[in-house]
């Protein structure tokens, strides 16, 4: 990551196999201003390398909406990396 001049803070939620793989349910994370969903995911693949294998089978969400990986984040966003859904 580049040097941090200003930061934004987001809330990250974990579900299903992503929750199990990381052992996390929810945490707040600080990121450089301008960071995207992909940048945030990169922080987690650095911490949990096995998560990288799942990237193609995850969809990101921002504030309860599915979002493209290049979506920029804003202060206070709720973010999640969602596995394939299997309700019903």
């Amino acid at each position, binding site marked *: 990551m580049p040097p941090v001049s200003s930061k934004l803070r987001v809330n990250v*939620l974990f*579900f*299903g*196999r992503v929750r199990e793989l990381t052992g996390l349910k929810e945490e707040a994370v600080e990121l450089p201003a301008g960071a995207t969903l992909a940048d945030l995911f990169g922080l987690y693949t650095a911490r949990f390398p096995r998560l990288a294998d799942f990237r193609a*089978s*995850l*969809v*990101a*969400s921002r504030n*309860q*909406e*599915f*979002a*493209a*990986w*290049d*979506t920029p984040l804003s202060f206070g966003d709720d973010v*999640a990396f*969602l*596995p*394939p*859904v*299997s*309700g*019903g």
Partner: protein
Amino acid sequence: MILDYGPPQKAAPTPMSQTAETDWFELVQTPIDPSAVVRHVRADNDGAIVTFDGFVRNESHSRRTLYLEYEAYTSMALEKIREIGAQMHQKFAIHRVAILHRLGRLEISETSVFIAVSAPHRPAAFDACRFAIDTLKRTVPIWKKEYFEDGGVWADGELPPAPPSRPKAAS
């Protein structure tokens, strides 16, 4: 875990165009009572109710299932279910909609999802009910873990379509 409120209060009869207020969308931790859901959508100006009862099968890919656990991104799941209800009213000439999904541990034959749609005429009710369950299975952030004799496995599931990269000006 935060769950939504129970069934909406039944108001005085309203014109068909305003009945979305009487729809019922909920994520529940306790058993679903299908007859209560059917009663909720039934009204004198309807002629048909179509329901979908999704319940726990005792096997998956030829392996004996012991029980299931469902978890959800509850706030987003409820929002997505509400969106399905709104789309149903836009697409089909229906009256009331109820979509309930259960979370937590479910035993064999327990209902995991129950959908009821009322309409003046049956074709719209059939089509809307099919649309509801198909869309729910593709877009609502709920996850199922199947427990077998040798442990638990997350069901394969479907990846919801993400918006294209570099979204246009809005959002």
